[in-house]
């Protein structure tokens, strides 16, 4: 199996002297969806910035085997002056995809996240959940081998959040990219992932790597199963010991 993302003994220290990550090793293979949970300030987001190349490591290696990487930010990060369709098209525009082609792909991506009919709406005309869907469509339109998610559902209300989780795991089942998902919600991590990585507080280290047994697509009702609850408990316990 191709290891799409490999972090090997990665350390990140900032010029201020803060050590955000210490000797973190982590790999994500094609068809794997790995969630990282940890207390706030443990360097989860830093991990993602290193994986994407937005920041440089202070020590260790980052290896990415992907022709296309996409990144979903905490905020939808849409361009307010562009319609939903043109926001999704932006990626193709920047990468030089011909207009007809990128427009067709953008429509498909919006359709995939359930936003057909909303192509012409501007971000401020959409609800929070819909804006995040546009953001996910923009990430998927480039057919990524590696998709990075930085707590994308953190700002959504509970009901929208659960619905977005259900949709994201079915998109993962459909597209089978390698996914790395940052969250501070243990149940979200367990519900979405093939593996949950638990990190300690600052400096961030990997303290547990817990596999999740269920296949995809997963039903919303999975959350009510006793086994699900047990696994959430196991991850929470690992988190509690080290925070």
């Amino acid at each position: 199996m191709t290891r799409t993302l490999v972090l090997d003994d990665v350390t990140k220290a900032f010029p201020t002297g803060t050590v955000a990550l210490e000797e973190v090793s982590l790999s994500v293979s094609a068809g794997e969806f790995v969630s990282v949970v940890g207390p706030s300030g443990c360097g989860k987001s830093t991990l993602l910035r290193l994986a994407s190349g937005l920041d440089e490591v202070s020590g260790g290696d980052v290896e990415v085997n992907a022709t296309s990487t996409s990144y979903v930010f905490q905020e939808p990060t849409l361009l307010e002056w562009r319609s939903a369709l043109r926001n999704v098209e932006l990626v193709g525009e920047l990468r030089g995809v011909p207009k007809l082609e990128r427009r067709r792909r953008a429509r498909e991506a919006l359709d995939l996240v359930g936003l057909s009919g909303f192509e012409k709406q501007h971000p401020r005309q959409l609800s929070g959940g819909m804006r995040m869907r546009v953001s996910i469509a923009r990430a998927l339109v480039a057919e990524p081998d590696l998709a990075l998610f930085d707590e994308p559902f953190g700002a959504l209300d509970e009901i929208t959040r659960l619905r977005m989780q259900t949709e994201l795991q079915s998109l993962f089942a459909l597209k089978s990219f390698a996914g790395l998902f940052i969250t501070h919600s243990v149940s979200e991590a367990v519900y979405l992932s093939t593996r949950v990585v638990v990190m300690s507080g600052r400096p961030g280290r990997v303290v547990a790597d817990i596999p999740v047994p269920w296949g995809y697509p997963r039903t919303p009702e999975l959350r009510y199963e006793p086994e699900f609850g047990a696994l959430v408990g196991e991850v929470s316990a690992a988190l509690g010991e080290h925070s």
Partner: protein
Amino acid sequence: MSTAAVHQPTAHPENRTAPQEAHVTSTATPAASSTVASAETPAAGSVPPSGPTPRAGSGRAAGRRRLAGAVAKVGPLLAAVAGIVAVWYVVTYLVLSPERRFLLPPLHQVLGTTLGNPLVMGPMLDALWQTVGVALCGLAIAVVLGIGYAVVMVQSGWAERILYPYAVILQTIPILALTPLIGIWMGYGFSARIVVCVIIALFPMIANTLFGLQSASPAAHDLFTLNRATRAQRLFKLQFPAALPSIFTGLRNAAGLSVIGAIVGDFFFQQGSPGIGGLLRTYTLRLNMDSLFMAIILTALFGVAMFSVFAALDRAVIGRWYGRSGA
């Protein structure tokens, strides 16, 4: 097997590290003001929003609504004008004694002696027209220079640190101190007056454009960095569109200042054909009160017209820009 790539250090967009001092005269960021969130998140694949709901009712009702809307828009302005006129008459007839009444002649007398007299109104309108020309030319030049200067500044942190002080110096030297010098250097014609106008209108264009260009979020910059956007792509697809609302704010301020600049130029540069500012001075020296008040009214109307045009332009463009069409 996909291609292997080890990440190389990626340069940050430099402008993100640029110092973001509070150097903005006045800026509106409609983007941040309020987000119109729909009440509910429609489920995946739900019905697209319907178009404008068909308005029931007769054309007469629609006409009444339009009329009510127009009254609501113009009403406060008319009320303000009526208030000013009322105070005017009170001062003229109740405050001033008859022998001092020439200090504020009643409005109907001002209008009566000027409006009907082509010998007065002719030169006054010619002069106003010239001043309008100066103000518009000055504004156009200030807009181009101001936006250009801000675009250069935003290219790197050091460009901003080097170039910004000049803009501040330009802003802090009182225009009244510079104007006579400009007259000596450049003569007293059209071009010297335009220069005065540009100097006074430039700073709000520079400051607001710069603020706008820096207003895109760090995450949006990351998005462009991750997709390997070129400098030009970043400027034209991110920074410039993000700056548009601030640029319009700057434009509105600069438009008002360009009127002041043109009149100041007129006022100082008496040689050559007079602008409305030149006439203001002439009327003052001759204590020609009726004409003086008429000239003041004309300049005020000119200022209001400039401001209104750019405010309307602002609403129209920015509204469309952010998809607030029909709102």
